[in-house]
């Protein structure tokens, strides 16, 4: 018997975007409010897991053609690269820098290299979570 899960799939299509927006909000809020790379990454992978529940693995792999193991590596490079920046400017490893920039749309914004480090955390968390879920899911 073929089940018809049109309600689940339709709701998923809408909800996924809300979840991803919320996770991005959490990620950028991290410096001043609760949130940050870890919880943001977990929530993004939560959105992808919802897609996996509503559709099958192949469809999701087609929509998001990402090798999650490489995502871990890219995330780690972000984090290490941020640290190496300190070495170039003759400061200790992981020394961060920040500045206030007047961006055209957003106005007065403080840019901080810690965000790059957080991006690394974000990517690694997504990579690890999805690798775990995918390998268990594909296991026969």
């Amino acid at each position, binding site marked *: 018997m073929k089940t018809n899960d049109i309600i689940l799939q339709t709701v998923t299509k809408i909800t996924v975007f809300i979840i991803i927006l919320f996770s991005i909000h959490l990620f950028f809020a991290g410096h001043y409010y609760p949130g940050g790379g870890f919880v943001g990454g977990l929530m993004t992978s939560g959105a992808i897991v919802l897609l996996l529940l509503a559709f099958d693995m192949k469809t999701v792999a087609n929509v998001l053609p990402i090798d999650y*193991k*490489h995502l*871990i*590596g890219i995330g*780690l*490079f972000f984090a*290490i690269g941020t*640290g*190496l920046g*300190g*070495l170039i400017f*003759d*400061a*200790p*490893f*992981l*020394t*961060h820098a920040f500045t206030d920039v007047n961006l055209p749309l957003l106005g007065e914004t403080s840019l901080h290299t810690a965000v790059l480090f957080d991006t690394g955390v974000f990517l690694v968390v997504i990579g690890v979570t999805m690798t775990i879920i995918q390998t268990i899911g594909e296991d026969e």
Partner: protein
Amino acid sequence: MNNLIILPILIPLISGVFLIFFSKNIRIQRWVSALSSLVTMILAVMLVHQVKSEGIQTMNVSNWEAPFGITLVSDMLSALLVLTTSIIGLTCIIYSFRSIGEDRERFYYYPVVFFLIVGVNGAFTTGDIFNLFVFFEVMLMSSYVLIVHGGTKIQLRESIKYILVNVISSALFVITVGFLYSVVGTLNMAHISQRINEVDESGILTVISILFLIVFGLKGAIFPLYFWLPGSYYAPPAAITALFGALLTKVGVYSIMRTHTLFFSHDTGYTQQILSVLAVMTIIFGVIGAIAYWDFNKIIIYNIIVAVGIILFGLSTMTPTALAGSIFYLIHDMIIKAALFFLAGIVITITGTSNLRGFSGLIKPYPGVGWTFFLAALALAGIPPLSGFAGKLLIVQGGFEGGQFWGAGIVLMSSLLVLFSVMKIFIHGFWGSADTFKGDDKVPVRALMIAPIVLVALSVLYGIGTEFVMPYIIEAAETLSDPSIYIEAVLKE
């Protein structure tokens, strides 16, 4: 600022991450891993040189002043151990090329080895107790992967035990750090040491020191807590066992050395006595295991436990002579255990078994393997020109100076039984008629022999060049016996 300290941690980390992207390309994996471990070794040599010429090196990560940020501290002891780790990492990678098999190599073997080296180097270098915990976990996670890597039945069984024991000891580590933090209110090791001398609560601090002894004793396999080690180290292939046997338990030993010299110097009577009794029991039980088994790997595994006991006995006497001896013996033991496990792996490749009753007469078709093993065995037991001698001599001398005649006597007796256990391997495995091991066709072992020959040569040089290395060892021991040098270097007051 001085970033040389962090490079032996950073280079393996970067190459490990880099190799994630090329997991299917064995050629890149091999070249990159060999090159980067060579670079790490050269940087470690430079670090030792710098510590020798300029004193203890510290680095405040993120440019936060000492007690508030994470500080990396490289005194002579940690610099020497980082150097030894890098040498063993390099030889292990070279040995893996021919022994580990392409299936394992394709499945992230080299990245995980690098992450293990990151953890070990980090644990030796850090100056922050919680950061030590994090590096312990980096090291342990990699060792979980390595112990199960390949997925044979015995590996699956032993990895469950290994992970269970280490998860429990890690939880205990966190709890202990929590206790310590609630008493002293800081995590920086130098600052903790300073505060411990100021607060007058020696009761709870003694409890914490015993808790640390239990935690690090579980990692480093001391007497009642070594039960997990013989089975776990028996399961993985030789290259991985060599890494484990040379590095993992020694990180536990290093941590005991560090915490007991730096933190807990207020009630030494009690803690040192417990440490000394446990060390002697560790030696006795290790020796019993070493002479009881008829299995190449098992004998060497129990010799790890003996060595841990000997090093801790040297620490427990707290005389400067014995401390120098412990450091000397620690480095010797890392090198020689790796060499012995490599040789055990070669013998298993040739004969297909590690049971000593299953083969004999290897010396005729494989004289190189035989004589290298003979030298390594003599070095392990501590025969004078070789590297095991000076360390044990100093430990025994320190034991007599400290009035611990029984302990020192047991250290001496243990050498005899250790010699007996390895000579049993030599006599039953290498002498005798050559027709008892399976197959007459010679297995090519020349490429595999590079790693053990390098290590045994190093150990011989280490033994002959004792005069040359001694200034370094003495300097390391000075920092251990006088924590104020360490505190001043970190807090700069």
